């Protein structure tokens, strides 16, 4: 049987979830902002280091306004990983990050939860890293969907991690 895992992109609106989704699945990027309503789903088959193939079913969800609890519960069912995305240029998008991650890990303890700071191309990496540290924001990766920086590596590492669990 084919190996298949569900990965859900979560986070406030306008942080670049759809851009990461499109960059990872189709290797495309558009400057134009288009709101996502509900959820769009695409599949990407990735090769694992051990030679097996994994179908990553990526769910790109509608961005929330206040916190992640606004996201429809049915979207989260059967997930193997959550990718919580925030915008490095907008502090308000990581204001409730710690609360959101706490909620996700407590409610879905078996699901791998990762945090991505996106739009790295618009900020100074050193400065933002120290700012995030000051705000006690822990993240797994800083990415730029626009320049493709760290995007493919992040998803590859995630694919390996979720097939181990």
């Amino acid at each position, binding site marked *: 049987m084919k190996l*298949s895992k569900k990965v859900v992109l979560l986070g406030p609106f306008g942080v670049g979830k759809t851009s990461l989704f499109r960059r990872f699945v189709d290797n495309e990027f558009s400057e134009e902002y288009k*709101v996502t309503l*509900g959820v*769009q*789903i695409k*599949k990407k088959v990735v090769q694992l280091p051990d030679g097996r193939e994994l179908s990553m079913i990526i769910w790109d969800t*509608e*961005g929330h306004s206040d916190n992640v609890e606004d996201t429809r519960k049915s979207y989260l*069912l*059967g997930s193997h990983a959550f990718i919580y995305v925030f915008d490095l240029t907008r502090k308000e998008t990581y204001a409730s990050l710690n609360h959101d991650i706490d909620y996700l890990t407590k409610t879905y303890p078996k699901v791998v939860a990762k945090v991505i700071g996106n739009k790295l191309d618009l900020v100074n990496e050193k400065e933002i890293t120290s700012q995030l540290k000051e705000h006690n924001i822990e993240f797994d990766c800083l990415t730029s969907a626009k320049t493709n920086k760290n995007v493919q590596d992040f998803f590859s590492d995630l694919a390996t991690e979720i097939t181990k669990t």
Partner: protein
Amino acid sequence: MAKQVKNDLYFNPRIQVIKVSNEGIIQETNKTFFDWDIKTSIYEAHPFFEILRTFAEEDTGQEELNFPCIHLEDDQSERICDVSFAFATKDITIVLFDYTQKYKDLNKIAQQRNESVLLAKELELKNKFLLEKEEFKNSFIANINHEIRTPLTSILGFVEVLEKTKLTFEQEELARIIKRESLHLNALIDDMIDLSKIESGTLKILEERFSFQELIKGFETSYSKVAKAQQISFETHVEKGIQEYLIGDRTRVYQILNNLLSNAFKFTEEGKISLSITKNYQRTNKVSLTFKIEDTGIGILEENIPYLFERFTRFDLDKRVSGTGLGLAIVKNLVELLNGEIKVDSIPEKGTVFTIKLPFRFELLKSSPTQKKKKYTLPDTKNKFRVLLVEDEEVTQYLIMKILISKGNFYVDVAMNGEEAINHIERRKYDLILMDLTISKIDGYQATRIIRNNYGDKFISEVPIIGISGKADETERDKCIRSGMDDFITKPFEQEEFIYKITKQIAKKATH
């Protein structure tokens, strides 16, 4: 159940019913909008349905599940549906409710709402980037200005020294060229600094009382000489009744008029140039003046006029004369900062008229004596005056020492940094300190504060200090005065001005 659903809803164009086995094989479907074949896998129809694998693998105990707003598409169709799964023992019934239009309408509202937030952020970011760029540019200009002015001071100073030595005709000519080009470079730096300040909004407009008549007379005197040399005529007309003293920014008014007059002389080979000033209106203590600078020069082509006030604008004809290409941009910006107006009329080969309107204030019922530069002389003493020069640039040290020693009234000691300066003043009495501001260890401001505050001995704490800097701005002057210095001189300086300031401070101290 599926049959029931099929019979009831078969003709509803917005609903599609699909019955699949627990293994995900399509058993029945009405194909309302997705043409998925029976006996094929629902997992292959769209990745969304892969979620069913989870429920097949793990018994979740769910009887029914609803997924609102799912984007579904295949080769022929694209829909936004609410999807419901009804789990039975052997199969699953999937119902797709097509709400594409409803969701698209909602999408528009969400798009507008989110876009407004994101656009505001984007603007804020762009603004931040522009500000950072501007700050970088301004600090770069300020620093490069300092770096250029220091060697330029030496060049100009030594040329002046050189001019006083015995020179052949050719050497004299070469010295004259070096001086002219150095002065041009100096003017370019001044222009760059001014423009940078104007653009960053840091140029302060002063309100000071000044003799307007004297300002115009100054132009008359200096440009009459130029006109004579160029064999053209120069006239000034001031309408009767214009106040002798006005309140405004004399320096900037001078800069505007000087720039325009200097341009007129550059581009006029024959005929005449005139500066006329008339009263536009006068109300209570406010007066608006119109300045006209008219020449019979080469003129400006009509198509070039819109670009005339842009930075670094130099038209083909201009190549005959030197200039920075910044002058008119500065003039326009200054006029606007002074709440004035500027316009230009020109006919090629006939001449150009620049018309400027500027507002001023004036004091009612008051007359003031003319303020002339007070003359100072060094106190009459048999001893020479001892000056401490705190400067780390050897060339500048050499230049200042040469200027002072050649006067015959001064001994000069040199300190390379603030620390050495402190050591010197503790060991010897000085009549004056010349303090470079950017010296190492302890900078000029700090060294001055130490001298002013840490010594009970008045010979030390009250010694006159003149700051020397390559930065020619009000902030620098202000910093010097606030740190306790008595005066400030900008590099490059004229020897006469330099000696005047030193004499003034020593004379003032002697009468104190």
